[in-house]
């Protein structure tokens, strides 16, 4: 399941909804990404997440399909926010549910790694020195590449 929205989310309610009534699920793994108040040693006041409506949904759906192809997951959710967010606010929620915990862990980490390098979102940070577009991290590319060989 894919959702792209400006509004905040309730991680517990989403976990509950994903697992409800599916009694073959043994483990649910979730990742919540939050806005940090510092980046590269500098204070960050807030950030604005821009995205490419249409392509975002298309890429997230492809990433979900790839995870379902690789792991026996019962269900999953990728929820990404856009708009202006302050430190401590939730940005992204990824949930995976599977009969066995290892599949849920791996699929969740895969989804987070891949959405960071494939979903068309861009962060504009507000710092004391003005606004600046966040640069892509080489570490994120490395993290995504871990899954390529499979």
């Amino acid at each position, binding site marked *: 399941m894919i959702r792209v929205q400006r509004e905040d989310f309730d991680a517990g309610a989403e976990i509950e909804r994903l697992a409800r009534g599916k009694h073959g699920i043994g483990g649910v793994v979730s990742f919540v990404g939050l806005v940090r108040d510092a980046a590269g040693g500098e204070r960050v006041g807030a950030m604005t997440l*821009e995205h490419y409506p249409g392509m975002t949904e298309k890429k997230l759906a492809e990433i979900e399909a790839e995870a379902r192809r690789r792991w026996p997951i019962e269900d999953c959710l990728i929820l990404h926010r856009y708009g202006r967010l302050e430190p401590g606010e939730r940005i992204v929620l990824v949930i995976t549910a599977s009969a066995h915990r290892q599949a849920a862990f791996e699929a969740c980490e895969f989804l987070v790694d891949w959405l960071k390098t494939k979903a068309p979102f861009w962060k504009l940070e507000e710092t004391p020195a003005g606004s600046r577009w966040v640069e892509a991290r080489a570490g994120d590319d490395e993290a995504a590449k871990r899954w390529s060989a499979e």
Partner: protein
Amino acid sequence: MKLLYFAWLRAKIGIAEETVDPPPSVATVGALLEWLKRRGPGFAEALKDLSIVRVAVNQDYVPTSHPLKPGDEVALFPPVTGG
């Protein structure tokens, strides 16, 4: 052909989207980028380092060799930084 610009490419070029009708010689993404560079100083500045410009045609990532056809939606943007 519909063009979309995002993040600092949008900021430097000064517009978010436009419809263009390039000459027939602009048959690939690479040719389109070269053609756009010559449209003004904002374009030249935004496209001066193509290693940090990503291109999507009809919402899929493509290499510069990708062929273009009329009606394509072409988006230019920096490497993504979501999540």
